[in-house]
Protein backbone atom coordinates (compact mmCIF):
# COMPACT_ATOMS: atom_id res chain seq x y z
CA UNK A 1 0.00 0.00 0.00
CA UNK A 2 1.30 3.42 -0.84
CA UNK A 3 0.38 6.65 0.87
CA UNK A 4 1.69 10.11 1.55
CA UNK A 5 3.31 11.32 4.74
CA UNK A 6 3.25 15.08 4.95
CA UNK A 7 3.59 17.82 7.55
CA UNK A 8 2.54 21.24 6.36
CA UNK A 9 4.04 24.52 7.45
CA UNK A 10 2.41 26.62 10.12
CA UNK A 11 -0.80 28.24 8.93
CA UNK A 12 -1.29 25.86 6.00
CA UNK A 13 -4.01 23.22 6.02
CA UNK A 14 -2.27 19.98 5.14
CA UNK A 15 -5.29 18.59 3.29
CA UNK A 16 -5.64 21.72 1.19
CA UNK A 17 -1.93 21.65 0.47
CA UNK A 18 -2.14 18.08 -0.77
CA UNK A 19 -4.68 19.06 -3.39
CA UNK A 20 -3.27 19.40 -6.90
CA UNK A 21 -1.24 21.34 -7.84
CA UNK A 22 0.99 20.55 -4.89
CA UNK A 23 3.49 23.23 -3.86
CA UNK A 24 6.42 21.52 -2.10
CA UNK A 25 7.13 24.77 -0.27
CA UNK A 26 3.91 24.30 1.71
CA UNK A 27 5.47 21.40 3.59
CA UNK A 28 8.07 20.82 6.26
CA UNK A 29 8.31 17.30 4.92
CA UNK A 30 6.53 15.40 2.17
CA UNK A 31 7.27 11.77 1.44
CA UNK A 32 7.45 12.47 -2.28
CA UNK A 33 10.66 14.45 -1.95
CA UNK A 34 14.04 13.29 -0.75
CA UNK A 35 16.01 15.01 1.99
CA UNK A 36 19.62 14.90 3.13
CA UNK A 37 20.29 12.36 5.86
CA UNK A 38 23.33 12.75 8.09
CA UNK A 39 25.19 9.45 8.17
CA UNK A 40 28.19 10.52 10.18
CA UNK A 41 29.22 13.62 12.04
CA UNK A 42 32.38 14.33 13.90
CA UNK A 43 34.87 16.87 15.17
CA UNK A 44 38.58 17.45 14.94
CA UNK A 45 39.54 19.53 17.95
CA UNK A 46 42.64 21.63 18.59
CA UNK A 47 44.31 20.83 15.30
CA UNK A 48 47.54 22.77 14.86
CA UNK A 49 48.01 24.66 11.61
CA UNK A 50 51.72 24.87 11.00
CA UNK A 51 52.08 24.54 7.23
CA UNK A 52 50.83 26.24 4.13
CA UNK A 53 48.46 24.50 4.02
CA UNK A 54 48.17 21.98 6.80
CA UNK A 55 45.95 19.07 5.76
CA UNK A 56 43.84 17.07 8.18
CA UNK A 57 42.08 13.94 6.95
CA UNK A 58 39.29 11.71 8.17
CA UNK A 59 38.68 8.24 6.75
CA UNK A 60 35.02 7.69 5.90
CA UNK A 61 35.51 4.45 3.95
CA UNK A 62 32.12 4.74 2.27
CA UNK A 63 33.43 3.62 -1.10
CA UNK A 64 31.84 6.59 -2.84
CA UNK A 65 32.39 10.33 -2.82
CA UNK A 66 29.87 11.68 -0.32
CA UNK A 67 28.19 15.02 -0.09
CA UNK A 68 29.32 16.65 3.14
CA UNK A 69 29.39 19.96 4.91
CA UNK A 70 32.10 21.15 7.21
CA UNK A 71 32.89 24.15 9.32
CA UNK A 72 36.22 25.43 10.60
CA UNK A 73 36.51 27.52 13.74
CA UNK A 74 39.51 29.83 13.84
CA UNK A 75 41.04 31.23 17.06
CA UNK A 76 39.20 34.53 16.61
CA UNK A 77 35.91 32.58 16.90
CA UNK A 78 35.09 33.02 13.23
CA UNK A 79 33.49 29.86 11.87
CA UNK A 80 33.56 29.41 8.11
CA UNK A 81 32.57 26.87 5.49
CA UNK A 82 34.66 25.65 2.57
CA UNK A 83 36.35 28.36 0.55
CA UNK A 84 36.21 31.12 3.10
CA UNK A 85 38.64 33.19 5.12
CA UNK A 86 38.58 34.10 8.78
CA UNK A 87 38.75 37.81 8.24
CA UNK A 88 36.26 40.63 8.09
CA UNK A 89 36.02 40.99 4.33
CA UNK A 90 38.51 43.83 4.38
CA UNK A 91 41.40 42.12 2.63
CA UNK A 92 43.34 38.93 2.79
CA UNK A 93 46.72 37.30 3.33
CA UNK A 94 48.27 39.73 5.86
CA UNK A 95 48.19 38.12 9.28
CA UNK A 96 46.82 41.34 10.70
CA UNK A 97 43.60 40.64 8.81
CA UNK A 98 42.96 37.23 10.29
CA UNK A 99 44.25 33.72 10.46
CA UNK A 100 43.71 31.87 7.23
CA UNK A 101 41.63 30.07 4.68
CA UNK A 102 39.65 26.82 4.81
CA UNK A 103 39.15 24.24 2.07
CA UNK A 104 37.28 20.94 2.41
CA UNK A 105 37.45 18.14 -0.13
CA UNK A 106 36.39 14.52 -0.49
CA UNK A 107 37.30 11.42 -2.40
CA UNK A 108 35.91 7.91 -2.06
CA UNK A 109 37.92 7.16 1.09
CA UNK A 110 38.70 10.37 2.96
CA UNK A 111 37.59 13.86 3.80
CA UNK A 112 40.41 16.36 3.59
CA UNK A 113 40.51 19.66 5.43
CA UNK A 114 43.14 22.11 4.24
CA UNK A 115 43.83 25.15 6.39
CA UNK A 116 46.04 27.88 4.99
CA UNK A 117 47.92 30.32 7.20
CA UNK A 118 47.96 33.95 6.31
CA UNK A 119 51.35 35.39 5.53
CA UNK A 120 53.29 36.03 8.69
CA UNK A 121 50.84 34.25 10.96
CA UNK A 122 52.16 32.03 13.73
CA UNK A 123 50.95 28.49 14.25
CA UNK A 124 47.41 28.33 15.55
CA UNK A 125 44.78 25.74 16.39
CA UNK A 126 41.43 25.16 14.73
CA UNK A 127 38.36 23.07 15.41
CA UNK A 128 36.59 21.38 12.50
CA UNK A 129 33.08 19.94 12.50
CA UNK A 130 31.82 17.80 9.61
CA UNK A 131 28.56 16.22 8.55
CA UNK A 132 28.56 13.42 5.96
CA UNK A 133 25.34 12.79 4.07
CA UNK A 134 24.09 9.67 2.35
CA UNK A 135 24.10 11.54 -0.95
CA UNK A 136 26.58 10.38 -3.59
CA UNK A 137 28.40 13.03 -5.60
Amino acid at each position, binding site marked *: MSGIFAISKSGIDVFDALESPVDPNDFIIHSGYSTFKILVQGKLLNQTVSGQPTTFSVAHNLGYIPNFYSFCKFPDDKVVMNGEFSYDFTGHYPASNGYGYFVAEADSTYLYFLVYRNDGASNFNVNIKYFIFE*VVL
Partner: protein
Amino acid sequence: MSIIARVSLPGIDALGSTDPRDFALFADSDNILIKEKARGTVSIADGYNETIAHNLGYFPHVYVWAQSPTSGRWRLVNGYTINGSWRFYVNETNLIIGNRSGATRSATYFIFYDDIP
Protein backbone atom coordinates in the same frame (compact mmCIF):
# COMPACT_ATOMS: atom_id res chain seq x y z
CA MET B 1 13.40 -2.41 21.58
CA SER B 2 13.87 1.06 20.21
CA ILE B 3 11.30 2.69 18.00
CA ILE B 4 12.31 4.39 14.77
CA ALA B 5 10.41 6.41 12.20
CA ARG B 6 11.11 6.05 8.51
CA VAL B 7 9.13 7.43 5.56
CA SER B 8 10.08 5.89 2.25
CA LEU B 9 10.09 7.61 -1.11
CA PRO B 10 7.46 6.67 -3.72
CA GLY B 11 7.84 3.11 -4.97
CA ILE B 12 9.99 1.98 -2.04
CA ASP B 13 8.82 -0.51 0.57
CA ALA B 14 9.75 1.11 3.87
CA LEU B 15 10.06 -2.29 5.51
CA GLY B 16 12.20 -3.69 2.72
CA SER B 17 15.07 -1.22 2.74
CA THR B 18 17.62 0.08 5.18
CA ASP B 19 19.33 2.38 2.67
CA PRO B 20 18.88 6.03 3.74
CA ARG B 21 18.72 7.03 0.06
CA ASP B 22 15.35 5.28 -0.20
CA PHE B 23 13.70 7.52 2.38
CA ALA B 24 12.24 10.99 2.61
CA LEU B 25 12.59 10.78 6.39
CA PHE B 26 15.11 8.49 8.04
CA ALA B 27 14.89 9.18 11.74
CA ASP B 28 17.74 6.84 12.60
CA SER B 29 19.82 9.97 12.07
CA ASP B 30 19.24 13.68 11.86
CA ASN B 31 17.80 15.01 8.60
CA ILE B 32 17.99 18.28 6.75
CA LEU B 33 14.45 18.84 5.65
CA ILE B 34 14.97 20.34 2.24
CA LYS B 35 12.99 18.81 -0.59
CA GLU B 36 15.00 17.66 -3.55
CA LYS B 37 13.78 18.35 -7.07
CA ALA B 38 16.69 17.24 -9.21
CA ARG B 39 20.31 16.26 -9.19
CA GLY B 40 22.84 15.55 -11.88
CA THR B 41 26.46 15.53 -12.94
CA VAL B 42 27.75 17.51 -15.88
CA SER B 43 31.12 17.67 -17.56
CA ILE B 44 32.06 21.24 -18.50
CA ALA B 45 34.98 22.40 -20.61
CA ASP B 46 37.23 25.08 -19.21
CA GLY B 47 35.90 28.55 -19.93
CA TYR B 48 32.35 27.38 -20.53
CA ASN B 49 29.08 27.47 -18.65
CA GLU B 50 26.43 24.79 -18.30
CA THR B 51 22.80 25.83 -17.99
CA ILE B 52 20.44 23.52 -16.13
CA ALA B 53 16.80 24.47 -16.42
CA HIS B 54 14.67 24.14 -13.31
CA ASN B 55 11.72 26.29 -14.49
CA LEU B 56 10.41 26.79 -10.95
CA GLY B 57 9.61 30.46 -11.42
CA TYR B 58 11.41 31.41 -8.22
CA PHE B 59 14.93 31.26 -6.80
CA PRO B 60 15.47 27.76 -5.43
CA HIS B 61 17.91 26.44 -2.87
CA VAL B 62 20.81 24.81 -4.75
CA TYR B 63 24.19 23.24 -4.08
CA VAL B 64 26.99 22.60 -6.53
CA TRP B 65 30.04 20.44 -6.00
CA ALA B 66 32.97 20.25 -8.39
CA GLN B 67 36.38 18.75 -8.89
CA SER B 68 39.33 20.68 -7.53
CA PRO B 69 41.86 21.64 -10.22
CA THR B 70 44.73 20.94 -7.85
CA SER B 71 43.76 17.67 -6.20
CA GLY B 72 40.95 16.24 -8.35
CA ARG B 73 38.89 15.82 -5.18
CA TRP B 74 35.41 17.28 -4.77
CA ARG B 75 34.58 20.59 -3.15
CA LEU B 76 31.48 22.57 -2.41
CA VAL B 77 31.41 25.44 -4.88
CA ASN B 78 30.95 28.89 -3.49
CA GLY B 79 31.96 32.37 -4.39
CA TYR B 80 35.68 32.31 -4.19
CA THR B 81 38.61 29.95 -4.29
CA ILE B 82 42.26 30.72 -4.19
CA ASN B 83 43.32 27.89 -6.45
CA GLY B 84 41.01 27.43 -9.40
CA SER B 85 37.59 28.76 -10.15
CA TRP B 86 34.19 27.26 -10.26
CA ARG B 87 31.21 29.54 -10.03
CA PHE B 88 27.47 29.20 -10.11
CA TYR B 89 24.39 31.31 -9.85
CA VAL B 90 20.71 30.60 -9.92
CA ASN B 91 17.80 32.60 -11.26
CA GLU B 92 14.08 31.94 -11.57
CA THR B 93 14.57 29.62 -14.53
CA ASN B 94 18.05 28.15 -14.58
CA LEU B 95 21.07 27.09 -12.60
CA ILE B 96 24.23 28.22 -14.38
CA ILE B 97 27.56 26.58 -13.54
CA GLY B 98 30.81 28.00 -14.86
CA ASN B 99 34.10 26.16 -15.12
CA ARG B 100 37.19 28.37 -15.01
CA SER B 101 39.41 25.71 -13.47
CA GLY B 102 41.78 25.25 -16.40
CA ALA B 103 40.56 21.92 -17.79
CA THR B 104 37.42 19.95 -18.54
CA ARG B 105 36.06 18.73 -15.23
CA SER B 106 32.83 17.51 -13.64
CA ALA B 107 30.33 19.18 -11.37
CA THR B 108 27.40 17.70 -9.48
CA TYR B 109 24.38 19.82 -8.66
CA PHE B 110 21.35 19.53 -6.39
CA ILE B 111 18.24 21.65 -6.91
CA PHE B 112 15.60 21.82 -4.20
CA TYR B 113 12.00 22.96 -4.24
CA ASP B 114 12.73 25.11 -1.24
CA ASP B 115 12.72 28.72 -2.29
CA ILE B 116 15.08 31.46 -1.24
CA PRO B 117 12.70 34.25 -0.28
